[in-house]
């Protein structure tokens, strides 16, 4: 299992190779890419920043949770930071398992947990020249205490 924040393009083929094994009948690759619209606004690019050491630690913890829940330790995740253009991959998750159901479920679990609690932020740039930090649905806002 490996989790990393990266500053260059994500090599998805390398991630697939990293989880490959003859004992796996299913490999799920999720790739999140920069989309040209958000909330009806035309997006031209995204700048990602992260609290890198904590983000890597939290992603590693999420992979361990997925390993326990779905019985696979063949999982790897990379999240890119810096300036990304439309279509660039911001995140990629590769999960392999003997069976497809667990591979799909583990992939989904890792992505949803990442979006909820890994300290990464994005500032979208819009076609009208403005830029804004984005808050996404489902993200942790504050502790309930």
């Amino acid at each position: 299992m490996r989790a990393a924040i990266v500053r260059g393009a994500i090599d998805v083929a390398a991630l697939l190779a990293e989880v490959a094994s003859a004992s796996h009948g299913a490999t799920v690759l999720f790739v999140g890419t920069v989309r040209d619209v958000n909330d009806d606004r035309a997006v031209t690019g995204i700048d990602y920043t992260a609290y890198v050491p904590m983000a890597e630690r939290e992603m590693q913890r999420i992979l361990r949770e997925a390993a326990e829940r779905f019985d696979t330790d063949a999982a790897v995740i990379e999240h890119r930071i810096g300036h990304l253009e439309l279509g660039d991959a911001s995140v990629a998750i590769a999960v392999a398992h003997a069976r497809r159901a667990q591979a799909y479920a583990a992939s989904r679990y890792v992505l949803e947990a990442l979006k909820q609690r890994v300290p990464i932020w994005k500032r979208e740039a819009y076609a009208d020249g403005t830029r804004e930090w984005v808050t996404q649905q489902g993200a942790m806002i504050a502790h309930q205490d």
Partner: protein
Amino acid sequence: MTVTALLFASYADVLGREAVEMTLPAGATAADALTWLRALPGGDALPPAPLLAVNLEYARVGTVLHSGDELAVIPPVAGG
């Protein structure tokens, strides 16, 4: 004691910096550090109860700080 506060994204923007050294009394909590930060120019733009992390782990406002700790004030996350 000295504690380093780290600020990110919109919070770094409103305070005009990404890190600040705080001198706090012994026994100070994360809540005390937040009060200190909110007294800085622009600090009133920080929410009263933001997400916090101490030494890379999410922490509650009642967490007691120690000299050399790293307190991160974490805006709503937006990875993916």
